[in-house]
């Protein structure tokens, strides 16, 4: 019996010894599998870290061209470099290596335009976004964003110096940032409008005031739906010229600049044009007055493929003025403005008078960037007077802008591939 027992034990020992490598082999494969996945993940993370390094360098210095290789991180190495592409965008490529595994992350950067903001304000002063306010499109406040109640922001919101109150939600203040919120982002207004001046001088049109007669220089521009523009030059009350010409002939690159004067405009825009008023060192110039409806020939709200774009760029204010002969000549009940408005040191607002009464809406469709926030209505003893504002962001502006519209000094990420 003892002999058979030994044979039995030996037999099963052999079987178990045969199975153990199988079980251990599976354990080893399982571990190798884990190591493969871990290595892949680490190589990817190293590449993504390199891309983040490069992105930060580009954000700090948008004109940077650089190439770094074989930097050590997390037991692996990474290299990253930039390439300027034919469309002037910057391609950042980052390679991460970890124990034979290599991963690549690529990001494309482009210079951003102020036209991409539904609302841009350098400062809010003491004005608050409050319950009932709705902002569509990206919004940036180059200061503290004042909030009260539950304003709604559909686009991404960025600020330089956070919000007031600083912690959200706070009591009854609970804004809805449906597109995200980020603070610490600096997008300063340009120090001047020299780039537009240069564009107008090379392929555009520059209006300059003659020395006589005296008075403020103004160019009145009425856009016609056949792609022409009727412009009249005034100096004080004197009319100097009256011309109708195709936009393309007047300014082949689409930039029309009044240097040292004001602009008064209305009409139907057919084409791409940016009109600009600079102060020319004078005190009452560099303003634009929107004297009536401004529409695109093809309404982008109905036809997103519309290729009509208007930029109104000023050194100072953009204003909806009281009509000539007011109050005998009353204000229009509703005003439609389809344009990108940019006021470098001023605001976009309506000229207000208690006698105007409570009017309809300023139906604005485009992008608004200004130094400070302007009012379209006010309250007095006789109640509220002026316009309600109904601002809509023109989604086309995420891709296209009016010609030579002011750009930010920063780059934005256009795409990120990993």
């Amino acid at each position: 019996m003892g002999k058979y027992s030994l044979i039995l034990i030996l037999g099963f020992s052999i079987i178990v010894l045969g199975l153990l490598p199988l079980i251990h082999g599976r354990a080893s494969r399982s571990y190798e599998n884990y190591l493969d996945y871990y290595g892949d993940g680490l190589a990817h993370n190293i590449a993504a870290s390199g891309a983040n390094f490069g992105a930060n360098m580009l954000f700090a210095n948008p004109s940077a061209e650089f190439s770094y290789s074989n930097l050590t991180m997390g037991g692996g190495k990474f290299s990253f470099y930039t390439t300027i592409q034919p469309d002037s965008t910057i391609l950042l490529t980052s390679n991460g290596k970890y124990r034979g595994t290599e991963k690549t992350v690529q990001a494309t950067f482009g210079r951003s335009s102020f036209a991409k903001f539904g609302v841009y304000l350098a400062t809010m002063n003491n004005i608050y976004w409050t319950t009932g306010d709705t902002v569509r499109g990206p919004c940036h406040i180059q200061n503290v964003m004042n909030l009260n109640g539950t304003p709604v922001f559909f686009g991404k919101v960025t600020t330089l110096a956070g919000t007031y109150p600083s912690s959200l939600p706070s009591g009854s203040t609970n804004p809805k940032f449906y597109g995200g919120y980020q603070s610490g982002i600096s997008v300063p207004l340009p120090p001047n409008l020299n780039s537009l001046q240069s564009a107008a001088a090379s392929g555009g049109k520059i209006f300059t005031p003659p020395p006589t007669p005296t008075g403020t220089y103004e160019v009145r521009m009425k856009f016609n739906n056949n792609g022409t523009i009727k412009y009249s030059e005034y100096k004080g009350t004197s009319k100097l010229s009256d011309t109708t010409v195709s936009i393309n002939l007047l300014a082949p690159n689409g930039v029309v600049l009044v240097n040292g004067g004001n602009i008064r405009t209305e009409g139907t825009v057919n084409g791409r044009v940016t009109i600009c008023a600079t102060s020319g060192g004078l005190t009452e110039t560099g303003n634009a007055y929107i004297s009536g409806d401004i529409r695109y020939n093809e309404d982008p709200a109905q036809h997103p493929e519309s290729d009509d774009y208007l930029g109104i760029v000023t050194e100072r204010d953009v204003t909806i003025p009281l009509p000539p002969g007011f109050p005998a000549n009353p204000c229009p009940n509703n005003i439609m403005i389809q344009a990108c408005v940019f006021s470098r040191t001023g605001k976009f607002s309506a000229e207000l008078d208690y006698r105007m009464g409570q009017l309809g809406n300023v139906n604005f469709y485009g992008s608004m960037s200004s130094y400070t926030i302007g009012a379209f209505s006010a309250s007095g003893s006789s109640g509220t007077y002026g316009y309600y504002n109904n601002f809509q962001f023109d989604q086309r502006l995420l891709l296209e802008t009016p010609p030579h519209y002011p750009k930010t000094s920063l780059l934005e990420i256009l795409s990120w591939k990993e």
Partner: protein
Amino acid sequence: MGNSTILDIMVSFVVAGFLFLMVIRISGGTAEATFVSGNDLTVQENLVSFVRIVENDFRLLGYCANHKKLPDPLAVILSADSNRIKFLTDIESDGEVDTLEYALGDSTSLRSTSNPKDRPLYRTVNSEPPIAYLFGITKFAFEYYSTLGDTLVPPISDPRSIHSINLTIGLESPSAYDDKYSSAYWRQLRLTSRNLNNR
């Protein structure tokens, strides 16, 4: 045949009985170890393979080689629910916008296995017929967060409000040993594509 011989035989029978019991126990343990280690390995390999596909797809969420075709990063997620998501991407990096949808099927859809909990996961590209992944998936659950970190309750009526995503994946073996299924979990906290909030 004396008394000592009878005693030897009885002891031998007792020893032999113990040995048989040991052999049976070892045999059962070995079979279980072999089966379970095989299941564990299969589940783990399936999980890694599946996660690689998912990670690759979600890293490309909102990406298009031609960035002008996806200008609004907020319009990237088309619909979102607790175990279903549909978004825009560029799967082949050819500059053409694709629609990609992940949707977990119900537990009655996959009855070729003995595991009552596993489900097919459908991956649909554009209007092509969906591809069913039969990895033994028992959990494919999303949680969505707003920009302020608040949890959004699915189904999400306004996908533009999604700022980050938490995805949990659970797999189990298709068959069990002694009613015990091998399982593996993967969770990506705050899975966020850079393309979702890039501009």
